[in-house]
């Protein structure tokens, strides 16, 4: 406990330097902007801004990128409440009751509760990260290649279980992601795999290219084919700050949402996205008047909003302590760390304590800033929402092109991302989730590396994954999760969580 406080103190001393406060602020501001504008996700934005962080020091770069991520979670709720379009996938639930509240002239209350809930969640999640960091890192140091391999397998299985919709499709997407990561030179033998002799594939598919293609261009194609209806609230926003009575009414949903989000956020794949759905379902079940849900209940905004913010933050835990990214955004953070010469893993906390604790402490500062950025500046964000999509998407196209080119300095990569955009559109049309694909892709190379290392150590014997107790335990959890997920009763309640909302 004392140790945790000491660590946070060190972190604050790093995060509170003028320079890092500035990067945190810029990150939160850009993140809010991205979150507010529908059609630009955090994945595409962080991809675009990766080359920008080259000129910063590692701590500042990561603080800014993290700010973009949780800032986007935050901004997404503004759009959800005011326009009824979830600015981010995690704000889908907020759109339901939040927009109903807005239609009744209580947009301000919804925004205020979302902000306060998110701040409480952010504060709590920061403490969770700080408390879990040291033990998780110690655990990570016990992991050999076999344990890492089994942990990743378990993570991928959990990602399938938590994914939205068909299990078969989610599984196929993960496997396809791992397969795509095999393209390019084999890291052990240097032999080219599935490159068709194309020069641009020799080094493999860059994750940034894949992410910008599927999440950036794919999203644009999707919106062009099926335009979303925009329904900007014309009326007054109303009072922003809730009264004490309203706060007291909503503090329980906020705390429950925070708890749910903190736990689910650590899980790989859809964890952070599932959290608001789970919170909504929970509040509905606990409510005296469940029939009111969907008609503008404040608790249905406060709970899920807290859950998504907490989840966004705790999803940093696997990355920072074990070096395993649990979702696409965290995968980009791996990229950002590698650019700066930092290999993510349990050794980071030891070798770069300033960076580690500075980043954690900056999250709390960032959450405080978000309250400041969001509430008084709400009028500005509303104006921004009135920018028509016909101008917005060409700007996104241009930014993506510039970002892609400046990362790779190779025009072929820009074209490849454009073509991958079509793939993203096809996935959307066939109702495949792109998130598991990205996760599989991200973990793919690491998975193969650890598999080979483990088999090298064990002289080619596959039993090495079962003879190590830790590895066997991790595989068992994965197996149990898969079995439970396939059970009809479990499938039903999982679908209910999503369809309740």
């Amino acid at each position, binding site marked *: 406990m004392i140790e945790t406080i000491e660590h946070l103190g060190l972190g604050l001393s790093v995060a509170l330097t003028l320079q890092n406060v500035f990067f945190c602020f810029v990150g939160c501001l850009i993140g809010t902007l991205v979150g507010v504008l529908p059609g630009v996700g955090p994945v595409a934005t962080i991809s675009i801004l990766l080359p920008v962080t080259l000129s910063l020091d590692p701590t500042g770069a990561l603080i800014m990128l993290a700010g973009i991520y949780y800032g986007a979670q935050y901004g997404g709720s503004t759009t959800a409440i005011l326009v009824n379009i979830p600015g981010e996938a995690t704000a889908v639930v907020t759109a339901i009751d939040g927009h109903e509240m807005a239609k009744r002239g209580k947009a301000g209350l919804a925004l205020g509760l979302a902000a306060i809930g998110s701040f409480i969640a952010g504060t709590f999640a920061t403490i969770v990260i700080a408390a879990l960091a040291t033990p998780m890192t110690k655990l990570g140091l016990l992991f050999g290649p076999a344990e890492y391999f089994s942990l990743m397998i378990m993570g991928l299985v959990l990602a399938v279980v938590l994914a939205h919709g068909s299990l078969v499709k989610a*599984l196929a997407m993960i496997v396809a992601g791992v397969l795509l990561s095999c393209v390019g030179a084999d890291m052990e033998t240097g032999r080219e795999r*599935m490159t068709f002799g194309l020069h641009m594939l020799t080094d493999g598919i860059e994750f940034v290219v894949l992410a910008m293609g599927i999440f950036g*261009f794919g999203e644009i194609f999707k919106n062009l084919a099926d335009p*979303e209806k925009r329904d900007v609230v014309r009326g007054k926003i109303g009072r922003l700050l809730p009264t004490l009575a309203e706060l007291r009414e909503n503090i329980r949903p906020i705390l429950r949402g925070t708890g749910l989000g903190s736990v689910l956020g650590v899980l790989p794949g859809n964890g952070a996205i599932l959290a608001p759905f789970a919170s909504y379902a929970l509040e509905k079940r606990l409510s005296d008047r469940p029939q009111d849900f969907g008609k503008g209940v404040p608790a249905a905004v406060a709970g899920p909003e807290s859950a998504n913010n907490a989840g966004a933050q705790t999803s940093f835990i696997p990355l920072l302590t074990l070096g395993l990214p649990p979702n696409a955004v965290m995968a980009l953070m791996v990229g950002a760390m590698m650019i700066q010469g930092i290999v993510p893993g349990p050794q980071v906390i030891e070798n770069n304590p300033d960076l580690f604790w500075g980043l954690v402490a900056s999250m709390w500062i960032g959450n405080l800033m978000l309250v400041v950025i969001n509430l008084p500046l709400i009028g500005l964000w509303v104006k921004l929402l009135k920018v028509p999509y016909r101008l917005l*998407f*060409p700007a996104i*196209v241009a930014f993506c092109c510039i970002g892609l080119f400046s990362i790779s300095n190779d025009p072929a990569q820009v074209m490849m991302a454009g073509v991958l*955009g079509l793939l993203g559109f096809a996935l959307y049309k*066939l109702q495949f989730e792109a998130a598991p694909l990205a996760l599989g892709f991200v973990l793919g190379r690491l998975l193969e590396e650890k598999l*080979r290392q483990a088999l090298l150590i064990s002289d080619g014997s596959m039993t090495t994954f079962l003879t190590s107790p830790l590895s066997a335990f991790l595989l068992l959890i994965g197996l149990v999760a898969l079995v439970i997920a396939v059970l009809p009763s479990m499938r039903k309640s999982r679908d209910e969580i999503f369809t309740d909302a």
Partner: protein
Amino acid sequence: MSREVAPPTPSLNPWLGRERLAGLSLVVFGLFALWAGSDLPSFTQDGIGSGLLPRALAVIIALLGVVQIVVTWKDTPESTGSWPIRDMLPVLIGVFLFALTIRGYDFGAFAVPVLGMSVATPLSIIFAGAAAKDVRFGELIVFAAILTAICIGLFRYALGLSLPVAPWLIGY
């Protein structure tokens, strides 16, 4: 949820229903990957070869495709809706034009000169913008000019990235 479910169309060929099409795509993708990796050895004398994992994954994907087709066999086929590829084409053209002009491109028979951000950016914006159904070209051209200036200022000067701006005019 935001995804609209298309009303079932009774006359739809079941192989064109969304779920079966999804399964079919997986089978095709798996077989394609098998073919693409067919030159790679599965095992070498040192242990696992570079072909084992890709091959195993490709087989799994194809099998999952079959499972997908089987489990949705009796479902009423749902249409995937429209695929307005032609409406998206301008965006793709914009992206390709950006790629070809930003640093030039040598096709062998002829070469695109290095035109830099000053040309590549507005080209991509105007072509992409043409994809909107409610496009207004006057507005789009003004917007492209302003945004190009902002991008050059931001990426080249403020952030110091070494992107060519207008080599044909100012030399870099």
